[in-house]
């Protein structure tokens, strides 16, 4: 790991340890943002880390950001961290100046957006919008004929219908009869979605890793029939199977965050989908009734896995996309394509 990256990670791990406790995680379910966490993240430049240096950011890579978000996922950090980090980068790319505030971000593939040059969005509706009441602006990345368009809206211009995700975090429906927009052209929609998806993937990975570690510890603490449940082969086999998932999904997620080619990113989210499913089942099974109580911390990770699993392209979406990259190849050309796709940096 590069020096920079280690520094980022240690900084964020320290911030998370200092500012985020169980009460702050739980408060997110009452729509209260853990503000001391976000104050510290903003203060340390983390929210602007993906913004190029000449535009006031740190100029970090997606791989660097993935390391931060993995730590955030481990800690079950609530709030629009990914959305702000990526949103700020998109604003910088689009040449739009904004303060260092928090942002919400949604991708829309097929909904009606205002025509180019329009400054009003009439009969606007967007769904699944994270933390719209806690941010200054809501960004919409929309597929367009030329690639993608970025729409910048004022968060308080929307009418909010509160909806929560499986972790209890806000994912609202926003509507407006008419709302002012600043819009700009961005590059390839699918490439942007891929970046968002791999960053969410890093959070998923972090939550899986925490749940795994906690379950191994718990198995060594909990005693039944006069011994630790870790001594039962059935428990060992379940956790070994989860270890498989953890290692496999970590490898492909790291490779995707470095290489970011279309196949690696799709493969990572597909693989993480299976790993998340296994983590939810196995960590709860190992914990017995204890894990089923709201009080116990396991559900703060497993419910986030439920919430995040299909974000920025569902698991099935990425599977179709991945297979689509190889469909039509022959028995001779299939392997070279798989093999080349599997190397970071490949197209």
């Amino acid at each position, binding site marked *: 790991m590069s020096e920079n990256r280690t520094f980022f990670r240690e900084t964020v791990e320290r911030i998370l340890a200092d500012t985020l406790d169980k009460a702050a995680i739980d408060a997110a379910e009452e729509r209260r943002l853990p503000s001391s966490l976000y104050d510290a993240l903003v203060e340390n430049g983390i929210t602007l880390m993906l913004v190029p240096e000449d535009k006031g950011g740190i100029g970090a890579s997606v791989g660097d950001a993935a390391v931060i978000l993995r730590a955030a996922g481990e800690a079950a950090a609530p709030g629009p961290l990914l959305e702000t980090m990526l949103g700020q980068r998109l604003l910088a790319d689009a040449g739009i100046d904004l303060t260092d505030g928090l942002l919400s971000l949604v991708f829309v593939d097929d909904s009606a957006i205002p025509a180019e040059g329009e400054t009003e969005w009439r009969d606007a509706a967007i769904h699944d919008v994270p933390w719209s009441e806690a941010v200054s602006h809501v960004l919409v990345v929309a597929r367009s004929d030329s690639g993608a368009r970025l729409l910048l809206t004022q968060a308080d211009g929307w009418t909010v219908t509160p909806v929560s995700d499986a972790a209890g975090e806000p994912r609202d429906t926003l509507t407006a009869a008419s709302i002012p927009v600043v819009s700009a052209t961005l590059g390839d929609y699918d490439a942007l979605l891929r970046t968002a998806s791999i960053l969410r993937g890093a959070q998923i990975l972090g939550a899986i890793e925490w749940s795994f570690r906690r379950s191994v510890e718990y198995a060594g603490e909990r005693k039944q029939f006069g011994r630790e449940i870790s*001594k039962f082969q059935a*428990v060992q086999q379940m956790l070994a199977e989860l*270890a498989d998932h953890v*290692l496999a999904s970590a490898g492909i997620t790291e490779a995707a965050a470095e290489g970011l080619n279309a196949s690696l990113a799709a493969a990572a989210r597909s693989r993480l989908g299976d790993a998340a499913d296994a983590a939810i089942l196995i960590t709860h099974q190992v914990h017995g009734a204890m894990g089923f109580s709201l009080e116990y911390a396991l559900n703060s990770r497993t419910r986030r896995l439920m919430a995040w699993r299909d974000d920025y392209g569902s698991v099935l979406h990425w599977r179709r996309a991945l297979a689509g990259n190889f469909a039509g190849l022959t028995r001779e050309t299939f*392997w070279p394509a798989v093999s080349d796709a599997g190397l970071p940096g490949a197209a």
Partner: protein
Amino acid sequence: MTATSLHLELPTLTPEAETLRQEVRAFIAEERSSGRLPPPHRIGLGFDREMTKRIAAKGWIGLTWPRQYGGQERSALERYVMNEELLAAAVPVGAHWVADRQSGPVLLKFGTDEQRRFYLPKIAAGDLTFSIGMSEPESGSDLASLKARAEKVDGGWRINGRKIWTTNAHRAQYMIVLVRTSTVEGSRHAGLSQLIVDLAAPGVTISPIISMAGEHDFNEVLLEDVVVPDDALIGKEGNGWNQVSAELAYERSGPERWLSSFRLISELVDVLGPDARAASLEELGRLISHLLSLRQLSMSVASMIQQGQSPNVEASIVKDLGTKFEQEAVRVVRNIVSAEDLISNGRAERLKALLIHAQQYAPAFTIRGGTNEILRGIIARGIGLR
């Protein structure tokens, strides 16, 4: 090791490795165009002495071994790249596979200079096939309970016992057996030794066992008063268990642990064409994602081994995941074949044959080389549960 210390390093392939990959692809293309490598109808490593000789002529057997023993002193990652290319193209490599992967390295690590000089160049030349004589009728997963014995006689050892499931014993010149040579109070693992048996020696009886896939690949090998010379002993008398443990680690994380049914997937992709149903693409995409992630892990382990680390738990994870993937691939291909009605319209005779054989073969994936339950026991210990 604890749960937090599962470890991975992203591999970087050197330019030499990529050059070698292109050389292997060129070799495969030539074999194909000359008709010596027809698309396969079966799963498995195959057995083709002539192919092994041609691979040896390229210098690709014993690739990592010292030059003085016929090797090329190339890296473990280069060997990894070569192997994945050969396996993905279904090149029959069974005549040298075990000798290259296991028997040679054991001799290199524990053998005498004389043993290395005698066996390794012949292996590298593609002339020797080795078998592994570990399992016995009463000792499978519990290998240390084995009963075959060797007693010291003048100038050598006299072996008695019965080995089973011995792959290629009927085609190989040599078998490395694990036998008990002494009894050590309080330790089942001490007192075992590895001996090289010439399979043509008097007292060796090899009887075929036909697999449920209809093939004669493995055998029962009866050893009755088989006398081998002193220099048939590998390493130290009584140290066999440690040697075998090292040996088994070599065989856990290689591409043969996740590519066994790859030819079935590539055949499906070929037959399926560009216009598949969404549900088929979803299943296929899932399979490819597991393939890519396994490859990532397998490369990482090869790269960590090359750096002198011993990622034993990670290697066991590759084998547990890889072999389950190989079975899963058969199920998925079968489902896509029926959903897309690929076979009944007659355009997929080869796929049909491959699928039948793969289904018959698949149960072995999670048994051979140590069952997945035993592997998960190793993983559980590695993450601190036992």
